[in-house]
């Protein structure tokens, strides 16, 4: 439990025993539209999982867009470099990775593209509900699927 300062009135959330200070709880509450905030436990869990899945969908969609852009610019080094530089500015890639272009081993860009190539697997209705946003875990899931494919090929 976060230590509370003396003299400040408790909010309902604190009185109910949540682990947040009043300020943190209220900040989280205001981040969600009032109409969407459920009051029953099942509703809270359902809404949380809905937003988590939406986060994965958004991330995969972004990677697909990036992958398609790279394919479009593959014969246009100047545009491709502009794209990579923009990603450096947004802290997606390191400067070193951008300079290495698309050839860097284990480069972040390769990982993002592999996620895009396996979007159908990651967004499959049976798989999506289990996943958390984050490129490193989604990349590994894509690799695991490739491993399963490769094994099937050996059967």
């Amino acid at each position, binding site marked *: 439990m976060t230590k509370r300062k003396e003299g400040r009135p408790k909010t309902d959330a604190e009185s109910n025993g949540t682990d947040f200070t009043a300020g943190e709880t209220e900040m989280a509450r205001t981040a969600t539209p009032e109409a969407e905030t459920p009051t029953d436990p099942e509703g809270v869990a359902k809404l949380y999982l809905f937003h988590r899945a939406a986060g994965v969908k958004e991330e995969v969609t972004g990677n697909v867009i990036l992958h398609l852009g790279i394919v479009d610019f593959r014969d246009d080094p100047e545009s491709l470099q502009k794209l990579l530089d923009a990603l450096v500015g947004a802290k997606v890639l390191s400067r070193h990775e951008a300079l290495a272009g698309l050839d860097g081993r284990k480069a972040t860009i390769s990982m993002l593209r592999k996620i895009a190539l396996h979007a159908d697997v990651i967004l499959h209705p049976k798989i999506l509900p289990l996943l958390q946003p984050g490129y490193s875990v989604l990349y590994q899931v894509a690799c695991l699927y490739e491993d399963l*494919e490769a094994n099937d090929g050996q059967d």
Partner: protein
Amino acid sequence: MDRIDRLLEILSACDGMISRRFVEAQRVVLKKAVVADAGASDRGDEARALASSTGDPSSATVSPVVAPASDFKTPISVLFMEPGRDDLNRLVREDISEGEPGCFRLGEAVADDAVMVIAGRVGDLIALASSLHWWRFERFSRLYLLAAPSEPDLMRAKALAVCVRGNLKAAFQFMGWPSEKDRDPLALAESLTEGIAGRRVHLFASEQALGWESIVGDANWDAGGPES
């Protein structure tokens, strides 16, 4: 079974949030299972051929697959370790009287051209310097802080110590301070030793990692040798 269903089965076995490390570990398990199946299949074919030629059905028995981490002979090119507090306390003891643990015995297999990378706090690495002989190294060749120091005292700063032997001595260099997201010690060790061929062993691992013989938990201290 459909591949999606197999993927679902693997992911569903995770207790808690599905992490990168969990999925990496499942890939290692899958890879080992494939290798074991292939080996068993090969041995089965040989045994069946033998049984057929000798008329002895008992010779069709398939011998178990030897765990790679109990192999103290195949030369190790890269040895990486992340000892925890308890492991460190045991590693720096001078009287190892209860039989030589596997984590030390693996030193017999460290190649003449080899690299050892140890992740830990600077203070712990200094303490460990007197135990390097177990893995046939004499001294640290490099000591890399993982972030720019925030205070003059470095004892608690996280670092990677590198021991190098043989013809690999000039190969290692960080390009700059690793970013927050790139500060995973195993990933940094992989980056530092990229291009070095041969066997790679990860001692005191918390989980299996792709491309490494990962020795997890108490298996490091088994007197008969750690098991993967």
